């Protein structure tokens, strides 16, 4: 049996640069334009440009194309349609193909004459310049026999059905714990409320973009805007019938993803096929409108939450039903019920999902998929319960505090939620809150305070990294991870510097290439925990290899020492029981004429880590540590809004977020990430919503002028803190992810503040002026 893995807690009891607010190591390259994004590899020999022609209608059949005018244009190289797209070895159009590819959608455009959604690509036009490709695409005529589409689950023609699984087969569609129906019926206090959530789009600054370069008939390099190079590699190689090794995917920089770049969407393989057809490297960027129908979205949905409670505010039953729109092929719904099942102590729980197929593309994970809308329903209803019973909203959350995971019965690996509540309340001044809704004014504006709980799970994940330490005191550390723009380059440099005992400016971290050791998709908040552990383990491997060199070197003071007796302190290899006996790593390497030494590491994140440690841990005294745990980050948001009662406008005027998320790798990038996620949530709460015309099943506001995301003026100064939290169960670094928890609970905190300000409970996101005006106050 293996021995338990070392942990950062053991080898670096005093952290060096880890945790420090180091400036971004890639900051200069980004602001000077040196950083290359996937659509910026313009020096490729003979690079040409592709644009997608998309369907106007949402349902129908293509009866023909008139390519004559388009093909006559100068510079036009090819127009690919379903009639002439080079054949693929596999498509996602059947269940087996979809699974093998790992496709987010069970349909690949340009493989049939059928049109299933507005914005579906129907042709890809390639020309020598972008402008010529665009013009030719405009001249290309598509003949379509249009049919009446179904627009959503609200469409009278839509048929609701009960799926067995949701979230693309990853979550059960029916969950029962205890007897929620009976407990609700018997509850002294019963609340039943319905919540709706608008369609949201991720809208990263960088659109989807692919540059495909066939370097040989059997060797392809793709520069792709993806959250995971390995996932794109798998998807593309499987569709082409190539081995993974023949397809290299590079993503050096990413301008945001938020989930929409977490899967390989049709434009990537279509660009690859276009490059094959014209025999030249081809570049394609989705236009901003195409971003609304190219890479998924958060689905339109209605949730009904029944909440049963005692008169002192203790939850006895939670029954959650969700109805949402999905595509003609897939059963996708965000799993909203997960967070409702685990956030508060409640013995009886039931969740079910209903779906309706409509002429839309498949929706996909959008930052905190399920947790964000699910927490909106739960945290709004809990707020109602608090007001109804005259209990402070924070107090009611403490009364229902879950000391263990109610869903699984497991102990928490770590949970600092009480500390988050206390610190957040202190920073915000929550104790000064007027308990009465609609009773606080600032001039003519109504002032409201609201709060909500945040949580996000630690998803099981693993990955690898490589560290090469040079005798001259430099190191290059590599993992095929992605930096979404949040700071992966920076935090991994910090981890490597501490693990190798080098200054950060002597360490270079490389990522975003399938030639590097495999790392997981940067999604589900797994990247920081997994990749940091991989990097740490690779450094440990370096030291173990170097110890072996030292103990076999006659000239070393460590000659013939047992490897297990040697430790590494600040780059010095020495005997544990006699630290004077030892020497610096560089001395050992120079004597051995080693310019460098390489280590490989495997990092695990979540339950897989705990399982492996438990299996390896022979010490019976540590048995309870090895018991399995439920693993989550927790946090709390506190929000002040000012509402104009006559105009219905809501402005967030104060914000406090406090999170317990394990070890924080970089105080500055972590704070920025929480701020960014909170703003993402404020957007969803107050203004974001894509409108699908219910007759045409086509969006009416697919632009950044008309789809509102917050501007600077919408956002106040934000206070963000972290609770110092040590979690030895989740990975070698004790790191939890913070990419998604930052937006969980945000919309409820805002809605709860709006209620406190106005006495109006708006249960429909976004909370726009029309809804504030139309909602009647519920409290006298």
């Amino acid at each position, binding site marked *: 049996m293996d021995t338990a893995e070392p942990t950062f807690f053991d080898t670096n009891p005093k952290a060096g640069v880890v945790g420090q607010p180091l400036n971004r190591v890639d900051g200069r390259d980004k602001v000077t334009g040196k950083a290359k994004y996937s659509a910026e590899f313009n020096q490729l020999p003979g690079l040409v440009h592709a644009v997608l022609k998309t369907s106007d209608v949402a349902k129908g059949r293509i009866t023909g194309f008139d390519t004559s005018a388009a093909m006559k244009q100068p510079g036009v190289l090819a127009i690919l349609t379903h009639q002439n797209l080079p054949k693929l070895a596999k498509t996602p159009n059947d269940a087996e193909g979809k699974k093998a590819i790992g496709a987010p959608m069970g349909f690949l455009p340009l493989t049939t004459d059928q049109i299933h959604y507005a914005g579906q690509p129907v042709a890809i036009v390639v020309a020598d310049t972008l402008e010529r490709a665009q013009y030719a695409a405009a001249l290309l005529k598509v003949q379509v026999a249009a049919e009446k589409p179904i627009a959503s689950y609200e469409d009278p023609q839509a048929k609701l059905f009960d799926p067995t699984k949701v979230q693309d087969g990853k979550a059960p569609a029916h969950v029962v714990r205890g007897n929620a129906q009976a407990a609700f019926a018997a509850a002294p206090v019963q609340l039943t409320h319905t919540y709706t959530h608008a369609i949201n789009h991720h809208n990263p600054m960088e659109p989807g973009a692919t540059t495909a370069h066939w370097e040989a008939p059997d060797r392809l390099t793709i520069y792709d805007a993806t959250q995971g190079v390995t996932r794109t590699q798998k998807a593309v190689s499987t569709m082409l019938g190539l081995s993974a090794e023949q397809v290299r995917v590079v993503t050096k920089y990413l301008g945001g993803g938020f989930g929409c770049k977490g899967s390989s969407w049709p434009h990537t393989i279509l660009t690859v096929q276009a490059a094959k057809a014209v025999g030249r490297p081809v570049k394609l960027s989705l236009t901003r409108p195409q971003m609304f129908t190219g890479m998924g979205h958060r689905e339109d949905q209605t949730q009904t939450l029944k909440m049963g409670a005692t008169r002192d505010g203790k939850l006895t039953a939670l029954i959650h039903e969700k109805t949402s729109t999905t595509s003609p092929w897939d059963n996708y719904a965000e799993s909203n019920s997960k967070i409702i099942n685990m956030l508060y102590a409640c013995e009886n729980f039931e969740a079910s999902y209903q779906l309706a197929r409509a002429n839309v593309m498949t929706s996909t994970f959008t930052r905190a998929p399920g947790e964000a809308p699910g927490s909106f329903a739960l945290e709004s209803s809990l707020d109602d319960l608090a007001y109804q019973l005259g209990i402070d909203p924070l107090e009611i959350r403490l009364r229902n505090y879950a000391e263990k995971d109610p869903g699984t019965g497991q102990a928490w690996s770590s949970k600092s939620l009480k500390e988050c509540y206390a610190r957040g309340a202190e920073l915000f001044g929550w104790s000064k809150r007027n308990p009465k809704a609609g009773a606080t004014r600032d001039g003519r504006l109504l002032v409201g305070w609201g709060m909500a709980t945040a949580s996000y799970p630690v998803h099981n994940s693993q990955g690898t990294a490589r560290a090469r330490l040079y005798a001259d005191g430099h190191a290059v550390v590599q993992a095929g991870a992605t930096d979404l723009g949040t700071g992966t380059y920076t935090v991994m440099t910090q981890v490597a510097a501490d693990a190798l005992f080098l200054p950060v400016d002597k360490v270079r971290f490389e990522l975003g290439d399938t030639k590097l050791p495999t790392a997981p998709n940067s999604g589900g908040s797994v990247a920081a925990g997994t990749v940091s552990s991989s990097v740490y383990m690779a450094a440990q491997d370096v030291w173990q290899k170097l110890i072996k060199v030292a103990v076999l070197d006659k000239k070393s003071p460590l000659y013939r020492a047992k490897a297990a007796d040697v430790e590494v302190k600040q780059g010095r290899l020495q005997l544990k029981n006699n630290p004077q006996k030892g020497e610096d790593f560089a001395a050992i390497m120079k004597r051995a004429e080693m310019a460098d030494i390489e280590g490989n590491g495997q990092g695990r994140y979540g339950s897989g880590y705990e399982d492996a440690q438990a299996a390896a841990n022979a010490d019976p005294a540590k048995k309870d540590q090895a018991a399995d745990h439920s693993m989550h980050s927790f946090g709390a948001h506190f929000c002040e809004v000012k509402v104009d009662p006559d105009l219905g406008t809501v402005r967030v005027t104060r914000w406090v977020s406090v999170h317990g998320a394990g070890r924080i790798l970089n105080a500055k990038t972590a704070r920025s990430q929480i701020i960014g996620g909170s703003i993402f949530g404020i957007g969803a709460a107050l203004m974001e919503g894509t409108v699908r015309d219910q007759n045409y099943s086509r969006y009416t506001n697919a632009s950044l002028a008309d789809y509102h995301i917050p501007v600077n003026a919408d956002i106040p100064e934000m206070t963000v803190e972290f609770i110092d939290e040590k979690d030895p169960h989740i990975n070698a670094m004790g790191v939890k992810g913070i990419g998604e928890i930052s937006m969980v609970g945000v919309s409820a905190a805002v809605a709860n503040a709006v209620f406190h300000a106005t006495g109006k409970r708006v249960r429909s996101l*976004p909370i726009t*002026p029309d809804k504030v005006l139309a909602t009647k106050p519920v409290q006298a």
Partner: protein
Amino acid sequence: MNNFSYTQAGSAKAATGLLKDKPQAAYIAGGTTLLDLMKANLEEHPQLVDINTLPFKGIEQTKDGLRIGAMERMSDVGENKLVLEQFPAISESLLLAASPQLRNMASIGGNILQRTRCGYFRDAAFPCNKRVPGSGCPALTGDNHNLAVLGTSESCIATAYPGDLSVALAAFDAVLTLENQKGKQRQVLVKDFYLLPGKTPQKETVLEPGELIVAVTIPMTAQARRSTYLKVRERSSYAYALASAAVGLDVQGGTIRAARVALGGVGTKPWRSPEAEKALVGQPATEATFRAAAAAAMRGAQPRKENAFKVELAQNTLVQALMKVAG
């Protein structure tokens, strides 16, 4: 976007001459509206005539009022001292619009000619009577939450002018100086410049083919000096108005002697409201008066499913604006 030729015009005569008998050609100034429309294939112009160097410049006091050259930029006019002093509502309408980058580029003439943000107009995949006459109006039963409730027709309910400046110009009796291809100038009140959609929503203004906007002149009045522009929108900046109000009052001894009211975001054109003005003049400057004026302004509104809230919102916006200038 289609291919087009590009010519710089050195004079108004040269510019109008270049457009002679070319109904498809267009003038380009700041380009902040036109290029968007062309890129989205909503407008096709084989020829663009650049009028940025025309001498339609200057912000100066004349006997008829403040004269602003059509080629002045939104930011320059919004921050101009005379405009700030004499026409607070006009300054505010400019500075609350768009973004600093757009305001630095966009000309006054171009702003007056900006086109609707109706989602059905802005996407060539939809039918739209304004874009393709006779093709239909999906907005009537579709997403109309930010479309008009006043001046609508069965052909079109778009807020044809979605912006802010012309709302303030309409309120304060601003006059446009237009010049045609014969070099002849004429004057049109801003409030009469825009047309109701009726059965011809494609015809949005009284501008003749090839005619240029030379300048806008706004009379200096007491009510213009005591004015404001209030804009309600779904985010704090860079958004079109759900409802807006440009108002000015001349109040003496607590009684309203003169009033100017125009609404934005609720009409198919910048909506000057003589009904509201009538309800204000001669009345005490009180909230009750303002409420009555607001009700008068919105009488006859034709709300639809998604935009019914605008009837109340526009009234509240107007009342709040009037309260502000009444002090």
